[in-house]
């Protein structure tokens, strides 16, 4: 890894420097577009007391759910608990601290974190438990709450294709939170399905510029489907 070449060749190198107690932002929606091998590397390393911000926390045996098994996560910032029984159990028992955050607010907190905006006002959550203890301000006769930006010591994300300098292209709804996550990390690690040489991507087609990416690794992915739903011909 040197200059504009962001490529690393091992997952160990990709997650080097991750320490107990750090905050990690993770891309993905459900199991779609998750950095599955970077999560596995965190499991292998055994890093603990992590604060993790991600829309969901995987399922019981996939994605971030794998980090719940060995209680590597101290605090989870997420919008949806849904289909993860272990998450719900640890949350109910108080073992896992959870900050339930509305999905759009979570995305915007990360976007703001990456864009140098310390906070923003939103109507989302006003008058609900989410708004409790937060500053309220009225604009044009409507009440809004102050939400603060979110940044990570590490960001872990998944894209489809990259050039060696970290210019990224995402694929379909695997994009989701990944772009904001990448912008908001002090160290942003991205795993992709394919890496091409600099100059091979059309600049107009790049979804996220490489300036936000610190480390890039090519992986192979299981892409587990949570709800395989089909129609008959």
């Amino acid at each position, binding site marked *: 890894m040197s200059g504009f070449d962001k490529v690393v060749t091992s997952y160990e190198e990709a997650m080097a420097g991750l320490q107990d107690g750090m905050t990690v932002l993770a891309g993905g929606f459900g199991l779609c577009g998750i950095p599955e091998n970077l999560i596995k590397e965190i499991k292998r390393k055994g890093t603990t007391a992590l604060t993790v911000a991600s829309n969901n926390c995987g399922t019981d045996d996939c994605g971030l759910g794998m980090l719940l098994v060995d209680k590597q996560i101290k605090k989870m910032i997420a919008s949806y608990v849904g289909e993860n029984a272990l998450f719900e159990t640890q949350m109910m028992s108080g073992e896992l601290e959870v900050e339930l955050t509305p999905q759009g607010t979570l995305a915007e907190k990360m976007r703001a974190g990456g864009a140098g905006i310390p906070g923003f006002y939103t109507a*989302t959550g006003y008058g609900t438990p989410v708004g409790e203890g937060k500053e309220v301000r009225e604009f044009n006769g409507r009440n809004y709450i102050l939400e603060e930006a979110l940044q990570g010591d590490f960001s872990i994300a998944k894209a489809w294709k990259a050039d060696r300098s970290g210019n990224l292209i*995402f694929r379909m709804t695997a994009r989701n939170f990944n772009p904001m996550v990448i912008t908001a990390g002090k160290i942003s690690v991205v795993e992709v399905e394919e890496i091409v040489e600099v100059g091979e991507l059309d600049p107009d087609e790049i979804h996220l510029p490489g300036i936000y990416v610190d480390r890039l690794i090519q992986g192979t992915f299981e892409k587990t489907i949570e709800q395989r739903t089909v129609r008959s*011909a």
Partner: protein
Amino acid sequence: MMALTRDQLAQRVAQEFKHGYYVNLGIGIPTLAANFVPDGMDVMLQSENGLLGMGRFPLDDEVDADLINAGKQTVTMVPGASIFSSAESFAMIRGGHVDLTVLGAFEVDCQGNIASYMIPGKLIKGMGGAMDLVAGADNIIVTMTHASKHGDSKLLNRCTLPLTGKNCIKRVLTDLALMDIEDGKFILRERAPGVSVEDIVKLTAGELVVPDEVPEMNL
């Protein structure tokens, strides 16, 4: 008393669609409404995970793990679909660009408050995008059952569960009735076929205004 089936609820929801509408459908019954878009009407479905122009479920050989809806189900895209990030998705929701939002709830009250994301001590689902949707949309329909299976009304004077949104719901469709919320009261607009006004009154705990004429739904 004949409560509406899930499909009939979806069918009544679809009557609120208009040609050229961008619509966000929540998980469950709202999603079923996509099956009842009238022929010749164009409706673009928004999926909050970053897709505008959601299509039908895929054929077995079309399944793609990278293409799912907000319920994590595999889907397809219609011609003219677009893909964007979660931040962009909620910018269009929060910015009021979506014409109609349909979502479920545990409770609604006659102040237009909605509770849909947790039952303390029992169930924690999380709000997902629901808090953003109810705060950002003007035109919202809540679909739910009128009462619990024990006969407890879910249409209250005051929600008892933690709120998803405050003073934001103006229309509720249940398996028994269609109601508007105006000036702190439920207004009964339509009855499910075969359901009497008395049945509805009995199962509505919140203040309910019954106009002289309450037509049956046209399904």
